[in-house]
C-alpha cells in the first residue's frame, strides 16, 4: 500500500534540517546533484574545458578566415626546398612567427590555419552525424520499448541487420554514386564540401543509431512500468504525448552520455574515411585529410605529421573523458 500523496508532502517538510535556508537544500533537483558531482570531478572538468575550447575555436574559424586572421588557402612555396621534395626550409617544418605550426610540404599553406579551419569541418561532420544517429536511435528506441510486440521485434531485427552491415565497406562502395546524387541537389560539384559532407553525415548517422536504440529501449522498458506513465495513459494521453512528453524527459541522461561518446567516434571515423578518400576533399581542410597527407611525411617532416595527429588525439580523448564523467555524474549507482 502506498502512502497518500498529501501525507508524503507533510512528512518531507516536517523533517528538521539544520541549515540557514532549508528551502535551498530541499530544492536540489537531480540535475543539480549531478552537476555538483560533475564539478567535483577534476578530470572531467578539464575535459569539458578542452572540448568547449575546440567548440569555440570551430565556431570562430570561419569568421577568422573571413577577416584574414587565419589563411588556410594561400600558397607559400617560397618557404619550401624544391630539391628535397618541396619540404619546408628550416627546422621543425618551417615554424616561424607568421606560421606558428609550420607550413605544409608541397604547397606551403599555413598548417595552423588549415588545422584550425579543419576543426570546424571535422566537428560539424561529427556533430551532425551524431545528431542523426541520436535522433533516429532515440525515437526508434522509445517506440520499440514502449510498444513492444511485433513493432519491437521488427525494430530489433532492423537493429541486428544494420549492425551486421559492414559500414566502412558501404561508405566506400556507395561513395561515388552517393556523392554524385547529393551533388545533383546541393550546391557545388562532386569534390565540393557540401555533397561530400552530406553523404558522409548521412551514412555515418544511418549506421550509428542501432546501439543507441538498444540502450534507449532498455531504459524505456523500465520507465514505462512507472506510475506516472500509467496515470498519463489513464488520463487519455495520446501516443505522441506519452513518447515525447512523458518518457523522453526521463531519457536525457543516457542520450547526453551516448552523444558525448559518439562524437569522438565520429571524429576518428572522419579521419579514417579521409584515408580511404571518402568525405570532404582538399583544398577544404579537415583534421582527417590534413592527417592523411601528413602520414607519408612522418619521417621527412615530423612536425607536419605531429600537429594534426596531436589535435585529433586531444579532442578524441577529451570527448571520451567528458562522456565518462557525465555518465558517472548522472548515474552514480552504475557499476563500472
Amino acid at each position, binding site marked *: 500500500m502506498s502512502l497518500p500523496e498529501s501525507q508524503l508532502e507533510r512528512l518531507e517538510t516536517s523533517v528538521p534540517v539544520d541549515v540557514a535556508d532549508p528551502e535551498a537544500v530541499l530544492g536540489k533537483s537531480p540535475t543539480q546533484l549531478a552537476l555538483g558531482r560533475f564539478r567535483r570531478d577534476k578530470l572531467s572538468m578539464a575535459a569539458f574545458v578542452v572540448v568547449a575550447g575546440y567548440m569555440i575555436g570551430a565556431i570562430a574559424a570561419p569568421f577568422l578566415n573571413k577577416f584574414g586572421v587565419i589563411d588556410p588557402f594561400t600558397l607559400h612555396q617560397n618557404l619550401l626546398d624544391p630539391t628535397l621534395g618541396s619540404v619546408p626550409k628550416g627546422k621543425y617544418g618551417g615554424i616561424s612567427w607568421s606560421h606558428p605550426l609550420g607550413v605544409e610540404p608541397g604547397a606551403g599553406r599555413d598548417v595552423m590555419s588549415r588545422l584550425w579551419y579543419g576543426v570546424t569541418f571535422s566537428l560539424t561532420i561529427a556533430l551532425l552525424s551524431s545528431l542523426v544517429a541520436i535522433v533516429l536511435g532515440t525515437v526508434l528506441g522509445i517506440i520499440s520499448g514502449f510498444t513492444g510486440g511485433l513493432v519491437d521485434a521488427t525494430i530489433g531485427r532492423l537493429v541486428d541487420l544494420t549492425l551486421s552491415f559492414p559500414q566502412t565497406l558501404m561508405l566506400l562502395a556507395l561513395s561515388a554514386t552517393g556523392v554524385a546524387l547529393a551533388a545533383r541537389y546541393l550546391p557545388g560539384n562532386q569534390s565540393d564540401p557540401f555533397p561530400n559532407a552530406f553523404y558522409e553525415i548521412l551514412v555515418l548517422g544511418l549506421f550509428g543509431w542501432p546501439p543507441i536504440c538498444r540502450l534507449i529501449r532498455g531504459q524505456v522498458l523500465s520507465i514505462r512500468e512507472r506510475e506516472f506513465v500509467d496515470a498519463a495513459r489513464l488520463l487519455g494521453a495520446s501516443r505522441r504525448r506519452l513518447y515525447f512528453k512523458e518518457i523522453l524527459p526521463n531519457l536525457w541522461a543516457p542520450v547526453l552520455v551516448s552523444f558525448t561518446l559518439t562524437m569522438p567516434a565520429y571524429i576518428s571515423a572522419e579521419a579514417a574515411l579521409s584515408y580511404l578518400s571518402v568525405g570532404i576533399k582538399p583544398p577544404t581542410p579537415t583534421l582527417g585529410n590534413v592527417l592523411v597527407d601528413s602520414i*607519408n611525411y612522418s619521417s621527412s617532416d615530423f612536425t607536419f605529421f605531429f600537429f594534426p595527429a596531436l589535435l585529433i588525439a586531444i579532442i578524441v580523448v577529451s570527448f571520451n573523458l567528458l562522456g565518462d564523467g557525465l555518465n558517472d555524474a548522472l548515474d552514480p549507482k552504475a557499476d563500472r
Partner: protein
Amino acid sequence: MASYRKKALAVAAAASMSVALAACGGGSDNGSNNNGTKSGEATKGGTLTYYIRSAMEHTDPQRTYVGRDITNWSRTVYRSLVTFPISEDAAKSTTPVPDLATDTGQSSDGAKTWKFTVKDGVKWEDGKPITCEDFKYGASRVFATDVITGGPNYLLTYLDIPTAPGSDLPLYTGPYKSSPEGKAAFDKAITCDGNTITYHFKKPWADFPLAIAALHMMDPYRQDKDQGDKSNYQIFSNGPYKLDGTWDKQKGGTLVRNPNYDPSTDSTDIRKALPDKIIIDIGKTSEQIADQLIANSGADKTAVTSQSIPAAYYSQITGDVAKRTVTVTSPFTDYILPNFKTMTNLQVRQALAASTDVTGWVQAGGGDKAYEEATDIVNPAVKGYQKDLFPGGKGDPEKSKQLLQSAGVQMPYPITFTYPSTPTADKMAAAFKQGWEAGGFKVTLDGVADQDTYYTNIQNPGQKADVIWGGWGADWPSAITVTAPLFDSRPNLTKNSNGQDYGAYKSAEFNALVDQAQEATDLDQQTQLLQQADKVLAKDVAYIPTDTAIFYMLRGSDVTGYMNTAASNGYPDLGPIGVK
C-alpha cells in the same frame, strides 16, 4: 608522390602509351645519376625482384600497351621481328635491330609493302618452331576489336583491307569470327612464303619497323594456344624466360629459364638474360617499396622497381642510399586542356594559358626530382619537339586579366578544373587555382578520387569541366603518335565518346596538316608538318603543357648492370640487369 599520379598515367596507358625516348639524367646535378650503372660483374644466376605497384591489365602481347611492360616482356618472354637494343644512348636504343627476323625489313612501293624473313631455329617454349603463320595469326588478333581490347590498333587503319560497308572499321574482324570476304582480304594483305612474311599497307608506313619494335602488336601468337579473352593473363614464351605456374593478377608471377630458348639465335645486345629467376611482385605501395629498398635487406638487395621515390622520402635519400638511385626524364608529358564546348572564346583560353602557374604546379608535386616543366606536349626526346612553344614558368596574371577584359566576359570568369585526385595532386591543383584566380578566374577544383574511371569520365562528351588534366607518352619516337591521336577530331569524336580528344577540339587546318604528315614518305618532311600542326594547336590553345615526369628510382645494392633505357621508356630495363 609522383607515383600516385603515375597510376593515372597507367590508365592513359590503356588508351595508349608508349615507347618513346627518355634522355638520361635531365637537369640533375647531384652526381647521383646512374651511379653504378656498370657496377659489379655481369654474372649469371640469382633472383631478381621487380616491384610494381598496381596490377597489369593484360599480359597478352597483342593487348600490352603500357610503356613499362612492352620492353620488359621483349627482354624476357616475347620476341618480335625487330626490337630495340640495350644502350644508354637514347638514339641507339630506339633504333630497331633484327630479333626474330634476319634483318630490319625491306620496304618497297613507297613504304607501302614491308617484307621480313623469320630466322631458322627460333622456338616456342614447348620446342615447336616459330613460323611465318604464327606472325600472321598474331596480327590477325588485332582485328578482333571485341575480344582483343586494350592494345594498339594502328594495323586497323594501315593494313590494306577494305572497310566494312557503312563503317570505318575493316571488313576483317579477327580470327574468332569473320566473314569469308574479310578473311580473304586479310590473307591478301599479309602473305607467307616459306619463312618470309609480307605486309601490304593502304598508305605509306615509313617507320613500320619502329612500330614493331615499340609495341607488341606484330608479335607471333600460336593459334592452338589462343583462347581469346581467357588468354589475357597467359604467357606463352619464346624468349629466354618462361612463366613458372600461372600469373596472379593481384600478385604477379615468377619467370624462370626457358629450356627451349637458343641463345645462338639471339644477341646479347638485346638480352643478356643474367638472373636465373625474375619475380614480378605486384601490390606494394610506392611508400612500402621505398621503405624496403632504403632498408636494403634480404631479397630487396636484388630488387628494382618501376615506382618513383615519393617526395616525402627525398630527405632519406642520402649517402649510400643516394648511390643506389637514378634520375631519368620520362617519356610522358602531362598537360591540361580547355573544354572547347564551354571555353569557346579564344581570348579566355589565352588568358588561361597566360595565368597557368607551371612552376607552382611542379613544386607542389615535389620539385625538380619529381617533375620538369614542359613547354610542348611533344616530349623533348621525341622527333618534332619544339622548345618554347608555350611560355611555362610562373604565369602572367596581369596579361590574363587584360585578355579577359578585352574578351568582354564577366570577371571573375568561373571555371572548373578536373584531375585525378591524390593528396599531392590536390596541392598541385591548388597551385593552379591560385595562379588562375590571380589572373581573373574563379576556380572550382573537381578532383576525381576514383582514378580507374578518370579517363572514362573525361571521355564522356557530356562532361562539364572547363579545364581537364591529361597525360600522354608517344607510342614511338615521333610526334605523329602524340598530337595526331590526341587532337585529330575525326577518329576521336563519336556520339558516345570524345576518344582521346578530351576537350572536343576540332580544327580543319590541324586535320589537313596531319593528313599531309601521314602521307609523307620522308621523315624530315613529316616532322616539319607535325611541328606546323603543333603550332596550330598552340595558337588555338588546344592544350597547355605542364610537366614531364621525372623517374627517380631506387634499387637494391646487389643489382648489376642497372639501366633505365629509352627502349624501356625510362623504366629499369630487364635486358642488361643482373644480380651479384
